[in-house]
């Protein structure tokens, strides 16, 4: 369970940017998480309510956008999405593939209220 560390990092980044922008409060936080990054949204939300208490981010809503893991087949150029486990190209069966995306692990934006 590394969600606690992740949640604390999200809080730190959001609070720093909110302070810089002279925010009164942060209302929303937008996270972008690729399929290949292991993180459980519910756990982050669970920790969030504890760690954000008494900060600029208290009561801020967390929004998770899951980016799909997209693979490119080098044999037939087919692009396909991984749903669950890793699979070879579903079109031609080749394991000669490259991961194009799915590693994202970003805090994309925050929404703030100003005085």
């Amino acid at each position, binding site marked *: 369970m590394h969600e606690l560390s992740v949640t604390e990092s999200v809080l730190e980044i959001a609070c720093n940017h909110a302070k810089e922008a002279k925010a009164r409060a942060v209302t929303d936080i937008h996270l972008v998480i690729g399929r290949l*990054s292991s993180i459980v949204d519910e756990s982050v939300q669970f920790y969030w309510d504890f760690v954000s208490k008494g900060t600029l981010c208290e009561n801020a809503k967390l929004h998770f956008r899951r980016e799909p893991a997209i693979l490119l087949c080098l044999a037939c150029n087919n692009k396909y999405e991984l749903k669950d486990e*890793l*699979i070879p190209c579903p079109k031609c069966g080749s394991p000669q593939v490259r991961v194009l995306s799915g590693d994202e692990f970003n805090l994309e934006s925050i929404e703030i209220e*100003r005085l």
Partner: protein
Amino acid sequence: MSEKRIKIVENILNANDQLAAENRARIDAAGVFSINLMASPGAGKTSFILATINALLDQDVKIGVIEGDTAPVTIDSDKISAAGMPAIQVNTGGQCHLDAVMINNALDEIGLDTIDLLIVENVGNLICPAAFRLGTHSNIVIASIPEGDDKPYKYPNIYRGLDVLIINKIDLLPYLDFDMDYFKQGIEMLNPGLQIFPVSCKSGEGIPTWLDWLETKIQ
């Protein structure tokens, strides 16, 4: 009162990554080569470190080891100390992984100026350590035959961003249904061209080939 959306786009673990970069600078300044060793519990991380230490005993290579454990147990670090090398035990207090802060503190104690090679034994776990850079030169995972050949398909994340993969306990291949081609195919899909060393820490098979690679790094 006005509302505003602020674009940030920052890696969530950026603070960790920055400290990892600082760790790297310290390690580089001391001329030390460093390894972050990850694996599931029981894959043979400590055995692999001991096999490496023992094989290099007559070569005048000083190896420092940072042992990460979730509880204050010194079983692993005691083994390293018994082999005559400095070991620092890091208790993560239940956390599933080491992070750059813990390594930063451990670097103060390990005596970077006195060693040639630093091995960090991460907490036994195939999921969490993958996300946290420590600042080491090489990220290495040890897979082992009894874990099964489907691990790359079930835990893809840990095999991304790896520099070397060790496949341990190959002496057990005749006794288990481990399809090496299927396993390697999964690795190739996630991390094409990854350097792989099949070894047995028990029989010593494959260890010389691993050492050849290692010795090119710790000149």
